[in-house]
């Protein structure tokens, strides 16, 4: 649980910084901190601490952002579940796969949010500008995913809490580094 608490503190600070940065940088160029951190936690921490990180950051982003309380958590649950399931059978603990995972999960989180916000609306109701914004944020999330995962891995390792339940199936024809990482 120590690593989960540390990640919650880091995440909350990142959310605060992001809330201030939005005055200077377009929102589309800022990462979805809660999503990136909760997916990283789902990859490297055990289920319960990862869920704690998700819950804390989801509620914190709602409070700081102004969205209805609980919406952030609900929107993050889908990417979290996808990550936990995919992590059982795919080698996701690697820079490239982490970036690809976040690139895929960013639209998933957006669609989840769209469904929750206004069932009849969705991304289409926001038009082309929103889609460009989504594409930009997907890129930013994918870019920061590997360093964030390294940070989460380091925190989990330091606390001796790296996820032990992971099955650890290698890539087909896995390279030696893949085996050594496990």
């Amino acid at each position, binding site marked *: 649980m120590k690593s989960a608490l540390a990640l919650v503190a880091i995440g*909350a600070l990142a959310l*605060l*910084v*992001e*809330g*201030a*940065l*939005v*005055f*200077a940088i377009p*929102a*589309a160029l*800022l990462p*979805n901190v809660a999503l990136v951190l909760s997916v990283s936690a789902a990859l490297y921490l055990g*289920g*319960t601490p990862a*869920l704690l990180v*998700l*819950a804390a950051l*989801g*509620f*914190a*982003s709602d*409070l*700081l*952002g*102004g*969205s*209805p*309380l*609980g*919406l952030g*958590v*609900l929107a993050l*649950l889908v990417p*979290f*579940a996808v990550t*936990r399931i995919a992590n059982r059978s795919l080698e996701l603990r690697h820079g490239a796969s982490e970036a690809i995972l976040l690139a895929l999960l960013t639209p998933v989180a957006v669609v989840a*949010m*769209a469904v*929750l*916000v*206004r069932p009849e*609306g969705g991304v289409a109701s*926001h*038009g082309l*500008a*929103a889609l460009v*914004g989504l594409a930009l944020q997907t890129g930013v999330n994918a870019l920061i995913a590997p360093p964030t995962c390294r940070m989460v891995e380091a925190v989990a390792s330091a606390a001796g809490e790296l996820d032990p339940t992971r099955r650890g199936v290698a890539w087909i024809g896995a390279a030696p580094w893949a085996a050594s990482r496990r």
Partner: protein
Amino acid sequence: MRDILHRLRLPLLFAGLAVLAAISLLADQRALQAGGRDLSWLSGGLLEVAAPVQRVLTAPLELIRDAYRRYVDLLGVRDENAALRARVAALEDEGLQLREALLASGALEQVAALRAQLELSMLATEVVGQDVSPWFRSVVLDRGRDHGLRAGMPIVTESGVVGLVTATTPHAARAMLILDRQSAVDGLVQRSRARGIVRGTGGAELEFEYTGPPEEVQVGDLVITSGYGGVYPKGIRIGEVVSVARDAPYLVRRARLAPAAGFERLERVFAVLWRSPTLELLAGDEPPAVGAAPRADAKAVP
């Protein structure tokens, strides 16, 4: 049994969190429909910590942006000055003519009375945080309950309506902007007096929905608050019509508005220390007497 529970721990926790989040969401939506709320100690505590931290983080960014803006503003200031002087002269002339017309119709006294009735105390507050998601348009303010702010109070700038306080803590507050897709303001076209609802689109523009004849709304018309919604006082600028959907086959017609308040440069805003009697009743407070003086404990800003 313990083994099963242990194996199902994560799915159970997952489901529990989903239920908790859904309940929070419904409670929050209900509170918003009832005109906002005071945050719980836990939620409020986070916002209390966040507001000063964000103010500190925003300060250097503001400094850089302000310096850049001053430099840009200086470019072409001479030409702008000359144009403004000419405009002031024209407006002064127009003002004199209007005053004459009002005096002639005996309406000036009524206008003065109306102004006195509408005069409300306002509290200056800084915007210290902003929502980064494209779904919601809200800001965090650095003043809260201890300064007189209550959920349901309107937020304005000198240019027009900004939004509404939706949640408060002792030293901070959250406000939903009129750009938010959940926002709806009862509006009035100043020229034709056509009434309608101004809705947020989530983007930079607003949508004005009305049911009257199409000629009642034209590009360039100013839309102001009607005072009927029970939230905003009458006569505050909302925005200017930039396009009208002429061929709409429906009863409800739509026009796009450019908001009067400069949302791209939202720094200092004013909270109107007033809540409609309806909101006071919903909040469980005593409704203010008609024409009651504004809160005396609040710092009034002229």
